[in-house]
């Protein structure tokens, strides 16, 4: 595999590939070297973006291809019944159920089903009960994030490379969402709480890193 191909793969990952490059890559999709490079570049990007990869060696592409091949006749049939939206989803459900691969679990870190905006999903999680087909990039709420949080137990604590959970407020009546007044009040509470807490808790003065605003005092 030559330098041109490598550059084409890199460009495709960045969404900047020319038509010709895309066609060249697609034509070489059965080439093991190309596939290995593709995986390797994605792993590197994940590391650079500090995402943890649980199953770096896992390759579900053959199963995905099989699933798509199995779906083709259904899609064609569905197309001939325009307006049968409900039937289309039933068809997809049957295929998804037959694939039944759950690849990545990363939902515990999120209180809500919402995915954090802007995070590309490298490998889709397919739930046997879900009606959505595997796709490479999606913003659909039913697809779990690829960010993985390994379970930490007492005796085998991982090093400080465990990703910190993106546990932002996503509960009902989220005080952080509800307008400037409420937010300011909450920030004021947080500041005052931290003033007292920092004299008593285990972290001490560095606790103030939790406080976002200092202009809230009345």
């Amino acid at each position: 595999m030559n330098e041109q191909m490598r550059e084409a793969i890199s460009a495709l990952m960045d969404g900047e590939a020319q038509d010709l490059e895309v066609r060249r890559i697609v034509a070489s999709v059965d080439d093991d070297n190309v596939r290995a490079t593709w995986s390797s570049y994605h792993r590197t990007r994940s590391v650079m973006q500090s995402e943890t990869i649980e199953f770096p060696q896992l390759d579900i592409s053959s199963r995905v291809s099989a699933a798509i091949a199995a779906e083709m006749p259904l899609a064609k049939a569905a197309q001939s019944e325009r307006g049968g939206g409900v039937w289309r989803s039933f068809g997809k459900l049957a295929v998804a159920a037959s694939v039944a691969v759950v690849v990545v679990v990363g939902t515990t870190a999120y209180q809500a089903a919402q995915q954090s905006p802007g995070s590309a999903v490298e490998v889709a999680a397919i739930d046997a009960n879900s009606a959505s087909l595997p796709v490479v990039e999606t913003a659909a709420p039913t697809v779990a994030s690829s960010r993985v949080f390994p379970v930490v137990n007492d005796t085998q604590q991982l090093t400080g490379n465990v990703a910190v959970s993106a546990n932002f407020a996503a509960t009902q009546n989220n005080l952080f969402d509800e307008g400037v007044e409420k937010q300011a009040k909450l920030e004021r509470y947080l500041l005052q709480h931290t003033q007292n807490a920092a004299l008593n808790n285990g972290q001490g003065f560095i606790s103030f890193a939790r406080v976002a605003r200092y202009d809230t005092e009345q």
Partner: protein
Amino acid sequence: MREVVRWPLLLACCCLAVAVRAEDADSSAWDLLMRLSQSHRTLNYEGILSFQRGDELLSLHLTHAVINDEEFERLEYLDGKQRKLIRRGHSIYCVHPGHQLRSLYGAQSISQQPLEAEKLKQYYSAKVVGSERIGNRETIKLNLVPLDTHRLAQHLAVDRETGLLVRSETVGEEKEVLERFQFVELSVGDKYSPDLFKLSGEDVELGHSVVPESAAEFSWRVDWLPGGFALAARDSKGDQGNREVVTYTDGLAAVSVFVEPLAAEDDGKGTAHRGATSAYSRAVAVDDTLYQVTVVGEIPMATAERMADSVSFSQPN
């Protein structure tokens, strides 16, 4: 320079009245925690640390010095707006309830209630889980795991040489790391001059006094507290002093309860999470007045909710 904290009822710090030191025949884990508490306040140290919370990453420069038996602290933000937080003149003999609880001594909270010795051991299990090199320091890893559902786990890494904190992770119920403080560089033992702790520009000075029991009590009470939490502070703030707060601590975590009048239009209900901190707010009608009760703390949300629900108001005469 802006002094954020006005302490209208400024009074002396709560000072430690040492009772009998609990005989500690337990594992070295508790000794390590005590040593950490001690070093934290009495040594001179300085370091660069990162604070991680979700996608947020903040870099800070901490300096801690003891000059003439008084603690001086400085936390400088290395990202974003140039700003320093300063706390100074805090006598090292003034020991707050949290420290006392971690020291496993029998002592007193600010409410003059005796703090049982070794109370912390009833609520957390402490275990040394290994060692790790962090920020160019050899550290001992210490896990403090809650024995009930009302508090969060703390995974600490303590410098073997000095006993100082090098890393602190607060871990949630699903074993996820909610927030992390980690020193990337730490140096110990230098001398510092008080000039280093002067304020300028956008700097903020933070206070260290505590209002003792003798000050007037509030017209409301928190009827339920998780076990092991003692009163750590009480104050009133705001323009008319009608924002009242009490803070409790179990020695590792802290939680504050705020009560203030609520404008009629605002429903005053809601929850919020940020890293290890949970906030729960509800509205309470007492005769003709509407109040907002808010609990903020590094505790599970369910605990915050239960505390808020347990706040009761005494009837006016």
